């Protein structure tokens, strides 16, 4: 019982680290998979960057000229390193089917149809619209699997083909259903409907800037393609070479998300390590205290062992091993608790777990180290007890 209480600090410390490390490793894996589906071969030209950090930035970016179809057309024509160029615009919309509806739903107008490849989306059932259909501004759509689940409850994907959903009050015919991509950070990537860009313009007008998406054949060409596109865009904005305060457009890859993600997780790591360090230090002090009590209680035993020929280092080793055994067990319990916690959280949020042997070894290793450090002084006190005095103890 006393030992169990002793271990609380260590268990909490190790469990915290293990849980967070396990969750973040799971996320890392997920993020890496997610973004590699699009890959590092895609970059975008847009009026505003995807991450805006302040109001001042927002105002600055809003003053920029819109990125237009003409820009996209110029890039398509002039950029020799570019492989596929597409145009995309997103709207937040409520969509309906019968008495079912989905709010805050992404309607994505794209052209040409290679945008599906650039976005890394594939068709599950049905088809993508043809170029002619796309150009003619017909009200047809390719939907993510959430639409099937939420608006046509119980229906299978092929049963919704040819059915209609209401987007901004207009009926859109479903021609295809996308392969599911699952969710990331709790946001579903399947709550989306792709519509032809010409239809999108009819629906929403040219009220907002578009995003030009450019894909290169291989990651090695990314830099030269970016250079070309930057030059084209600067020319179109009337900028000369050299330093300017603002280029008037944002050229980005998916790395901006990875950078942001990396910063966020490293902050989480730092906080967790701080929490763990504090609880391990407290845990270590408690272990030291208990070991001191143990040495006092077992003075007689130490005297007997010394009388029988135990040297200082024998006694020192004995008590160190005891301290390490106790804290290693605490670490083990912490590792299991941490994995359990991570498993629970993962099950609640819904992403795959990555339990690594490395973090388990680290957890037990660190707690053993705490055992050595906090056991050292008590063990040393035990080792230097005078055998005559110790034998006299009760």
């Amino acid at each position: 019982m006393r030992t169990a209480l002793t271990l609380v600090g260590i268990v909490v410390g190790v469990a915290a680290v293990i849980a967070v490390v396990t969750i973040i490793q799971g996320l890392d894996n997920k993020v890496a998979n997610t973004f590699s589906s699009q890959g590092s071969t895609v970059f975008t030209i847009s009026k505003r960057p995807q991450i805006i950090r302040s109001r001042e930035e927002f105002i600055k970016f809003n003053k920029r000229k819109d990125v237009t179809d003409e820009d996209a057309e110029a890039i398509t024509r002039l950029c020799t390193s570019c492989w596929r160029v597409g145009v995309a615009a997103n709207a937040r919309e409520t969509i309906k089917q019968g008495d079912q509806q989905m709010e805050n739903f992404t309607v994505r107008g794209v052209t040409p149809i290679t945008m599906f490849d650039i976005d890394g989306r594939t068709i599950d059932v049905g088809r993508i619209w043809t170029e002619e259909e796309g150009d003619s501004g017909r009200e047809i759509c390719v939907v993510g699997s959430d639409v099937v689940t939420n608006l046509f409850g119980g229906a299978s994907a092929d049963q919704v083909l040819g059915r209609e959903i209401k987007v901004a009050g207009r009926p859109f015919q479903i021609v295809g259903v996308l392969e599911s991509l699952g969710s990331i950070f709790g946001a579903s990537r399947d709550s989306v409907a792709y519509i032809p860009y010409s239809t999108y313009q009819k629906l929403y007008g040219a009220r907002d800037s578009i995003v030009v998406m450019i894909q290169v054949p291989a990651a090695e060409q990314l830099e030269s393609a970016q250079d070309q596109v930057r030059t084209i865009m600067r020319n179109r904005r009337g900028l000369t070479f050299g330093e300017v305060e603002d280029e008037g457009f944002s050229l980005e890859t998916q790395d901006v998300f990875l950078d942001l993600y990396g910063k966020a997780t490293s902050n989480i790591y730092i906080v967790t390590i701080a929490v763990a360090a504090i609880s391990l230090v407290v845990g270590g002090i408690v272990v030291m205290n208990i070991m001191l009590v143990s040495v006092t209680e077992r003075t007689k035993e130490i005297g007997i062992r010394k009388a029988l020929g135990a040297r200082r280092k024998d006694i020192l080793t004995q008590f160190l091993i005891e301290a390490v055994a106790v804290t290693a067990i605490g670490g083990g319990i912490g590792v299991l608790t941490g994995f359990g916690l991570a498993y629970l959280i993962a099950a609640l949020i819904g992403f795959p777990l990555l339990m690594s042997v490395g973090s388990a070894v680290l957890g037990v290793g660190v707690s053993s180290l705490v055992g050595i450090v906090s056991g050292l002084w008590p063990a040393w006190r035990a080792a230097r007890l005078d055998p005559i005095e110790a034998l006299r103890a009760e």
Partner: protein
Amino acid sequence: MSDATLTSPAVEPVVQPEPPRPHDAGSLISMRNIWKTYEMGSEKVHALHGVSFDIPKGEYIAIIGPSGSGKSTLMNLIGCLDTPSQGEYWLNAKNVSEMDDDELARIRNQEVGFVFQTFNLLARATALHNVELPLIYGGVSSAQRHEMAKKALAAVDLTDRMMHRPNELSGGQRQRVAIARALVNHPSILLADEPTGALDSRTSMEIMDLFERLHSEGNTIIVVTHEPDVAARAHRVVSIRDGLIEKDEKSR
């Protein structure tokens, strides 16, 4: 260990002890002009003032004396639990008086078998493990340790109690486990401190009989006691009083 060790006042002894002879290389134990002085604050207290004697191999000797005579101090020195302030102590041709803690531990392990008044067994360990303890510190391999400990327990007729813990054994049995532990390493001396002090008279007789048998088998036995009955079983009795040897007589 039960009686106090410090009584002599802080005065230099008037009677000079006999002049020290060089140590006797033939003796198992050779003490020459041994002083033990404790500092009590500013005062110096002499627990032993110049004790010299020899114990040949194979002797059965009792050290007697009243409380505070210095006999416990002497026992601690003989048992290498402590070193003298002055003088030379040779045990089995090794000068113990100059040794450091770890060397003393080694000597205790190899040369001395302790038997205590209160047995001093490890409560949580079996009889067998208790007997193995000195062998662990002696670096004996596990298999050999087992073999030797079993043999030692057999020698004190406790083969059927090997796996019992001390609280499952009678006083006499516990003391026999302690004796087995003391002898398992084949030490030069068996040093017993009031070995019957915690036993009834019938069990005391059994233990004394066992000592006699061990002596007849060639062991050197030193018994520290204040009981005349126990001392009478020894073949030589050394009386200590006020930190000096008062009498040293062979009884048989």
